[in-house]
Every structure is written in C-alpha cells, then in structure tokens.
C-alpha cells in the first residue's frame, strides 16, 4: 500500500455546495520517482533448517513417527491376511452411515488401504523430515546442440545412409515398402472381421415385420397381437382404460413364461427394436388425424426406442401427455403424434398402426413404416 492507492478522504464524492462533477485528478498524488534502472537480484530465499536438522530430539521424534506409519502398514497387512481367512464372502457387517454391507469388502478394503497408506505416508514423512535437505540450483542449458554434433548427424544421414544402397537398389526399396504396407492389413482385418456380419436391411426391420428381423431375414407381414411385457399375454382393447400405459412386445418374441421355450433366437436384439409403448388418451385430446386413424378409439402405440440415441422412452405423464426420455430429456407430445417438443431428438417416435381382431385383442395392422430408433447412415 502506498500513497497513490489512497485517495484523500472526502474527495471521492461530489461536494454538495455547488453540485459540480468530481474532477478526475482530485485526490491523485503524483509519485516521487519512476522505475529504477534495474532491479537488484533478490537471490534465493534463506535456507531454513528443519527442526529435525537442528534438534536431535525432534529428529528422534520424526524417526518414531515414520516408524509408526510403517508399523501401521505392517498391522494393516497382517490384519488383511487374518481377515482374508477369517471372513466368509457372504458375511455382512453393520457400519454406521453405510448400513449392512459386505464384511470382506469393508474389512479387506480398510486393511489394504492402511497397509498402502502407511508405506506411502511414512516414506513421504521420512523424506520431508530426515532425508538430506540440501538445496541445489541447477542451471538451465541451451537446447541447441553444438555445431560439430549437428554436422555429424547430417553426415551420418547423407553418407552412411547412402552406403546402405537403398537408393541404388530399387528392388529392395519396393519390396520393403510392400512388406511394411501389407503388414498393417492383418491388424485391420481382425478388427473389421470381428465386427460381425453387415446389418443389411435389419436396422430398418423389426419383429413387427413378421418375425425374426436379423441380417438377411426376409419377414413377411401378418397381423400380430400386442403382448404385455414381461407377462407375454395379449391385451384386450376394452381393458386399456384412459390414462393407462402398457409396455408391449410383439406376439412370438418373448419366450413362454413357464417353460422358457420359444421366442426370438436373438432375444435382446429383437426386443431392442420391437419395444412399444401403448397408451390410451381421450380421443378428443389427440390433435393428429393420422394418430387417431392409426390408433383404436384413443389407444395409440408408439415405438419405445428414442430417435436420438435409442434409449427406452418410457416416462409417460398421463396429465400432460408428455413422453420423456430419461437419457437426454427429449420430450415427445403424445397428443401431436409424438412430435419432439424438447430435447435433442430430431424425429418423432414412429407410430405402430393397430386395430382389434375378432376376439377384441389389439393387433398390429402394419409394421412400422420407418426405421425405429436413432439415425444411421443408410436410413431412408
């Protein structure tokens, strides 16, 4: 703090008597001198000796502290070995703040932490208190090599490189290039080959197209019942009350619940494409004619796979009719044909056209008219 920093008290506000603006140089005190020609080198700060360097008692104390830390490590390791044989893997133990937790996880973890921390802390404390405390200044050197060394490098490259005769003997040059270039192929081939077969049309097909929809499959459409997931029972249109939500899989995809037989061969792949959310709204609230036409008396079925990156869009709010994706908060408005009203999704959720069969069960009237889920390169 010097004089220049402190304005004279009372000059920083306009004086009340005549109301003039404050003069900008008011309170400014001109300094006495400019900068000195050069600053003196302050040098290195004085070296302070540590307690342990000057006081033998302190050194002994530090020695004991380091030994204690190493001792903690020894105790931790021994306790680890004991607990390893003592504790059963299934055993639980109550720890305040955590609740009942695995005894081996807690016990072995704490012991191992003590045994490692003891070594680490002891070593650092040892270095900081007892190991030599000389301060050494290392000068920086220029990076550039000496002219003689630089000339030698150039000579080695131009003259001795030439003596390998690689420029004179093109056969060696080209076969070496070929060998090295081809060497990369097996590496790339393994990675490429392990990616599996090309998806072909399978990204645009789902089980609703008529059954298995993997690469190379050519399903033919037939109406399929909408089945409850995970119970795998068909849904009667009359049972779907307004405000209801059903999580739906196509008929034949899920295996039989009792026997575990049947169902899709590639169950997870098929489920990931075919999942559908079924909702019933008051038809008067639906603003899209196509949505009404593709539904049945206000019962509408939409793909549950988000068009952003394919998360299951399951958070349906029955009052606002918003359908929220939990991953990135894309929000779809079910009253407007699942238009995106918020979030990163680009396209509305594809609707599944449904109707009822003779027995009153909900069935699909046609497969999805577009690929479900996120965008991909070949998507039409």
């Amino acid at each position: 703090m010097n004089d220049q920093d402190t304005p004279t008290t009372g000059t920083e506000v306009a004086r009340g008597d005549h109301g003039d603006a404050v003069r900008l140089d008011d309170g400014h005190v001109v300094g006495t001198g400019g900068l000195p020609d050069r600053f003196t080198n302050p040098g290195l700060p004085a070296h302070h000796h540590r307690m342990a360097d000057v006081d033998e008692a302190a050194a002994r104390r530090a020695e004991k502290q380091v030994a204690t830390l190493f001792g903690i490590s020894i105790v931790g390791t021994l306790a680890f070995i004991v607990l390893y044989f003592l504790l059963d893997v299934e055993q639980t133990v109550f720890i305040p703040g955590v609740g009942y937790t695995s005894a081996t996880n807690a016990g072995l973890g704490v012991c191992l932490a003590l045994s490692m921390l003891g070594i680490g802390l002891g070593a650092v404390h040892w270095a900081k208190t007892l190991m030599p405390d000389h301060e050494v200044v290392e000068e920086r050197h220029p990076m550039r090599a000496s002219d003689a060394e630089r000339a030698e490098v150039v000579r080695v490259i131009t003259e001795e490189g030439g003596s390998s005769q690689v420029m004179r003997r093109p056969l060696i040059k080209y076969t070496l290039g070929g060998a090295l270039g081809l060497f990369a192929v097996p590496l790339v081939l393994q990675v490429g080959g392990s990616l599996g077969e090309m998806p072909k049309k399978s990204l645009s097909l789902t089980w609703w197209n008529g059954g298995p929809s993997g690469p190379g499959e050519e399903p033919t459409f037939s109406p399929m019942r909408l089945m409850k997931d995970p119970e795998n029972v068909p849904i009667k249109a009359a049972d779907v009350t307004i405000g209801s939500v059903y999580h739906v899989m196509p008929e034949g995809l899920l295996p039989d619940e009792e026997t575990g037989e049947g169902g899709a061969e590639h169950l997870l792949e098929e489920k990931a494409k075919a999942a559908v959310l079924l909702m019933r709204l008051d038809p008067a609230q639906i603003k899209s004619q196509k949505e009404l036409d593709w539904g049945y008396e206000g019962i509408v079925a939409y793909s549950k796979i988000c068009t952003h990156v394919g998360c299951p869009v399951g958070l349906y709010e029955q009052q606002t009719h918003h359908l929220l994706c939990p991953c990135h908060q894309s929000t779809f408005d079910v009253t407007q044909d699942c238009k995106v009203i918020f979030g990163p999704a680009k396209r509305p959720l594809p609707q599944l056209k449904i109707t009822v069969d003779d027995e009153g069960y909900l069935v699909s009237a046609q497969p999805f008219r577009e690929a479900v889920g996120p965008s991909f390169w070949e998507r039409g």
Partner: protein
Amino acid sequence: MNALAARRRHPAAIAVLLMIGLFLTGAAYAAVAPEPADATTQALPAQSVEEGKALFRANCASCHGLNAEGRATGDGDEIAGPSLAGVGAAAVDFQVGTGRMPMTAPAVQAARSEEVVFEQEQIDALGAYIASLAPGPSVPSEEAVDPTKGDPAKGGELFRVNCAMCHNFAGSGGALTRGKYAPALRGVEGKHIYEAMQTGPQSMPVFNDDNITPEDKRDVIAFLDTISEQENPGGMTLGSLGPVTEGMFAWVFGLGILVGCAVWLGSKSA
C-alpha cells in the same frame, strides 16, 4: 486466552470462527424460533357418507367444488381441482393418507408429507363420500398388500419394466418434465403403492387390474419391501441415484484428497 490469541493468525482460524458463528446463530434461532401454528382440527370419528360430505365441504370444496364436480380457476382451461366422480375411495385414501391432500397452495405437483391432516377414520369417511358419487376403485384389503405373501423376484421383473423408468431401479424416484418428479418409494406403505398403481395419481399413468393384476401388484410391493431391507454389499448407496451422486462423491472427495496430497507433497518441509 493467551494461547488463543497467539493462534489468531493460524490459517484455520477463519474457518473455525465461521463454524462457531454459524453454530451460535443456528442455536440462537432454534431457541427463539416461533412454534408453527397447529391448526389441526380434531374432529370426531366419522363413518358415514354424510359425515364424509361434511368433511369434504369443509376441507376440499374450495378447489374440488361443493359437490366434488371440480372447479376451474377461470384462467384458460386451468383447473383448481379436478372432478372426483369415479376416482373411488382408493384415490382418496392415497392422496389424503400420504399427506398430499389437502394441498396448502397450488404447486406443480402435490408433495408427499409426513403430516397427515386427517385421522384414518376421517379419511375413510371422505372415501365413502367420494365412492358414493360414482363407482371407483376401493381401498385394498390388508391381505392384498401383504408383502410377505408376494413374490419379490416376479415383482422385481414387473417393477423394472413398468415402474423403474420413472421411479429409478431402486425406487429412489426421479425427475419428470417441467419441475414434476416421480417420488421415492422407500418407506411408503404397501397400501399406498397399490392405490397409486390403481388410480394413477397426478402424472402417473394408471395400471389397472388388467394391466398389472392384483397378485402382480402385491409382488411389486413385496419387491419394494425386499430392496428396502436388503444390505448393500457395495458399500454406501449414496441414495441409489446412479452417476449423479456417485460422480459428485468422486469429484469432491476423490479429487479433494488427491489435491490435498499434491499440496502436501509439493510444500517445502521447512
């Protein structure tokens, strides 16, 4: 006092002073803070529809209308309270029994409250009155919500498909759109879980008996009961909220310890 004075320039002095100041302020406030006014009326137990009606008119009609027909605020199509015809005794038992109703003020969502305004007999009377207006789901029996009679494994499967996307895989609750949220399901009575599925309160969709059968509902209750009793082999759950709390913990404590170690390692020893 001299020892204290000598340490007044210690780096921790400001933090210690702050803590003492905060503690004293809090203690002083707690000592002189006014008790919240307790306006709970201890009405006589009422069983009949008539008494339920009287309770309704006194406590609910300002939003739901004198005859539970619902009432508009007059601002667009905004409503003060929906019509209650056909919601059934189950909805009343859920909304009033969990302290959500009566709402003290309009809000984006009625929050669960530990302070239930009415006695169970009064809630039953209100339910009887609402059920008399139009048929609706009734309060489930003790047996229908007994977790010991359900199958927690099947309940877990149903929970993960039908409930987990909003209420979180461990029933910890989660966010919905525009300030609404799905509440945590821990410590909620089985009866109220059942009624919520049956009636679809607020943003929640309806899961009627054809969608999730009464036995399945009991399985879900058994599952929730099981996970609340379960030990945590992995240690602290941090609320079972997934990467949000876990990441926060790692950033604050993990990185905090690392920074502390780095400062200690880099500091001069004398």
